[in-house]
């Protein structure tokens, strides 16, 4: 991010070069710089979480516990979950790409509350420091789900510190969501009607609604857990007549919608990529846009499907199962519409498009296996097994991380002003796709065979599948490290990016420089066209 004399930028006012010095970054209110701050923070956290995953996978090469003692292993998978969920997946696309793009896509100079945006990042950093401290003093072994009464009375780890980190992190998420909602409502440029919004904005808007309405429930729930743990008395304590299942209801009332925080933005990215690399208006704009809102809405009504075997009433299970199938419908609609968009398009398989197509495939796998776990009878068998682990990694990693990588490559010219090296990028994409499938497909088999999750040791007959999975994980790890190098490399040596290298539609490509100036546009644009107006031609410079 430093400056280089040989850059020959005619315009020194672009957001990367308009101010210098560490203060101009740490106290910036520019949404683009804050996006970069988030990019750096979550990349760090991604590799921290990845390191835990590596240790987990290495331990599972053999059935016995040899690399890690079970006590350590339990901390590893817990920290992997906590770091990846709250410190990578939830902020990933919204806080990095959303922060960078939403103001530009709606035609605004910044988010509605730039200082609150900066506060979000500071809160995120504070919570990140907290979680790193928690790791260094010994970590936490409750699982990322903090189930009571284990987390409140039985765990001998730093559950309160971890809960506090997540509590603070929650404020960061809420404030980001609030900023997005207000921005989309009040900051749209003249002519930018709701139905002209890019689908990336729609999906992030839906995400923001979930962030604002679900996260506070997590906050109060973790507060209750903290109180119970510190004061040794609380409302989930069975000794007082308290109900540990109530904790699960409250936890999943947040955490199931949170799953949609972790996938909706990815769907938004893929809608942008598929249209840009087919040079075609998306098939069924309204259906894709409203599907996002439907997912956000129904997402609040399905939390009980995490409790099918918990002792929840059978009839409650019935309702939650039915609603879970309802929420699958809009996801299916999206997959069909993306596929149909390719029809008679002008398809270019550049790296972002490879990621987009991989997303559709992997998300389809994750979504279809969701039908298995939503089926009450099947869930009784696969609940809490590796089948579930594989299912949600297909959504979270195969879906969200893939979309994030695709989006990062697609908008990299806009963010950095430089092109990434296409050849290396394709190699990395290939490694990630292959490594991912080799890691997680065997886990479906393991799950149906009955291997429970969170097991440090396992019966020997499961070993072959575990070895395959670990082999895949090592390839996947390489696949994720490679982009780190070439993206850094490209910031200095990459080809200088034109304003609209992909000939894509959208205000960020057609109206803003690469990289954009501090206030995004010379003057606020007036919008006269629909989104994805490829047939009417796009502005190149």
């Amino acid at each position, binding site marked *: 991010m430093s400056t280089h004399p040989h850059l020959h930028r005619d315009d020194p006012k672009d957001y990367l070069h308009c101010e210098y010095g560490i203060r101009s970054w740490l106290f910036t209110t520019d949404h683009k710089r804050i996006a970069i701050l988030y990019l750096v923070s979550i990349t760090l956290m991604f590799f921290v979480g990845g390191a835990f995953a590596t240790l987990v996978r290495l331990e599972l090469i053999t059935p016995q*516990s040899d690399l890690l003692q*079970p006590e350590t292993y*339990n901390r590893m998978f817990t920290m992997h979950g906590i770091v990846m969920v709250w410190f990578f997946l939830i902020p990933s696309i919204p806080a990095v790409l959303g922060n960078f793009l939403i103001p530009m896509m709606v035609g605004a100079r910044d988010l509605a509350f730039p200082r609150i945006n900066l506060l979000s990042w500071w809160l995120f950093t504070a919570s990140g420091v907290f979680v790193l401290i928690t790791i260094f003093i010994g970590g936490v072994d409750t699982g990322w789900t903090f*189930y009571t*009464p*284990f987390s409140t009375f039985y765990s001998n780890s730093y559950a309160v510190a971890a809960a506090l980190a997540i509590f603070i992190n929650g404020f960061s998420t809420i404030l980001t969501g609030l900023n997005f909602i207000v921005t989309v409502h009040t900051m749209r440029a003249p002519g930018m009607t709701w139905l002209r919004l890019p689908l990336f904005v729609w999906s992030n808007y839906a995400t923001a609604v979930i962030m604002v309405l679900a996260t506070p429930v997590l906050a109060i729930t973790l507060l209750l857990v903290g109180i119970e743990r510190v004061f040794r008395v609380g409302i989930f304590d*069975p000794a007082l007549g308290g109900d*540990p*299942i109530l904790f699960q209801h409250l936890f999943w009332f947040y955490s199931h919608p949170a799953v949609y925080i972790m996938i909706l933005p990815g769907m938004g990215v893929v809608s942008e990529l598929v249209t840009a690399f*087919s*040079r*075609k*208006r998306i*098939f*069924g704009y309204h259906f894709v846009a409203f599907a996002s809102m439907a997912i956000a809405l129904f997402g609040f009504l399905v939390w009980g499907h995490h409790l*099918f075997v918990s*002792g929840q009433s*059978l009839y409650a299970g*019935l309702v939650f*199962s039915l609603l879970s*199938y309802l929420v*699958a*419908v809009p996801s*299916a*609609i999206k997959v069909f*519409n993306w596929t149909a968009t*390719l029809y008679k398009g*002008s398809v*270019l398989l550049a790296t972002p498009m490879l990621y987009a197509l991989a997303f*559709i*495939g992997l998300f*389809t*796998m994750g979504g*279809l*296996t969701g*039908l*298995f776990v*939503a*089926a*009450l*009878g*099947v869930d*009784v*068998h696969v*609940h*809490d*097994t590796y089948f579930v682990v594989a299912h949600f990694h297909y959504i979270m990693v195969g879906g969200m991380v893939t979309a994030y990588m695709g989006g990062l490559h697609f908008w990299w010219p806009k963010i950095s002003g430089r092109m990434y090296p296409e050849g290396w990028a394709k190699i990395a994409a290939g490694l990630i796709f292959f490594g991912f499938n080799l890691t997680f497909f065997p886990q479906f088999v393991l799950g149906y*065979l*009955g291997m*429970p*999750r969170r*097991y*440090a*040791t396992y*019966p020997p*007959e*499961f070993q*072959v599948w575990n070895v395959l999975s670990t082999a895949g994980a090592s390839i996947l790890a390489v696949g994720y490290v490679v982009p780190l190098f070439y993206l850094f490399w490209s910031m200095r040596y990459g080809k200088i990016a034109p304003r609209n290298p992909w000939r894509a539609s959208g205000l960020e490509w057609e109206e803003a420089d690469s990289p954009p100036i501090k206030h995004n546009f010379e003057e606020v644009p007036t919008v006269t066209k629909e989104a994805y107006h*490829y*047939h009417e031609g796009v502005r190149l410079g």
Partner: protein
Amino acid sequence: MAGAALAVPFWPPPAAQSATAVDHLFIFLLAICGTVAAGIFITILYFAARYRRRADDEIGSLRPSPLWVELTWTAIPAAIFLFIFGWGARVYFSIYSPQVGALQIYVVGKQWMWEVQHPNGQREINQLHLPVNRQVQLVLTSQDVIHSFFVPAFRVKRDAVPGMYTTVQFHPTKAGEYHLFCAEYCGTEHSRMIGTVTVMEPRDYERWLAGTPRGEPLAATGERLFTKYGCVNCHGNIAPALDGVYMKGIGLADGRVVTADDQYLRESILDPGAKIVGGFPNIMPSFRGVVNEVELQALIEYLKSLGAPAAGYAGEERRPRRPVTRP
């Protein structure tokens, strides 16, 4: 591997009626989802190749997105989903709905072992011996954190929750030894909270019953505890008599009528003031911290042995703990 082929398991052995039921649904799902996934993958690959960009400035052709197309691919998946939902629900109810005449076995999970009590007095740790072709009902609870009783070969699991009784049913169909896992993360030794379920032919099972050193029958233990804790001193004179109490409708002091199921009996031992029987004073001390979960189950088994309503236990799930209120 010279010669000796490494046994790579693909499918868990089906050893109960529930296993067959789950397998059938699973195979149906594999077939339908596999078809859909293959269809989408092939379409994507075909479109990507067929409509690949041939010139740098080529533009995709504007296609309308007709409403009927959208509605079609909304309605068809929705219909299929409903079908899967119905099937899944059927299997679920067949696994969790209690059935009359099942062999009742009590299981307590604790960090980190499974403690099993048979009605005839056999006690096992991390072992469960069952006869083949007999409906079995487990009554589960936990002494500390949440555990989950999971037998992959039966395709069933059920959480064991502290402060609550949960049940699970199965009908083993094939003799053999099968894995027993704890599926709900419960702390350090979670992955070692495992055991074996041994399903035996009736004759072997009889031999096992006879050959296993057993204490007294569970109900007898309960009776002994009933005397030891002095219950016998009051019940029958200044406290309600307990003959045939199990599954009886109990009129409470506040006018409600509750069914004396396992959960009610448990609560009345641990927290006697919670639901007081009409016409009796609230004088019973709490036995919380005095009797443990294993003893509780023995006491309840004893109360059941005092004669139960003829219909037997065919109630619904024991949750919610709020008793059924009749006007």
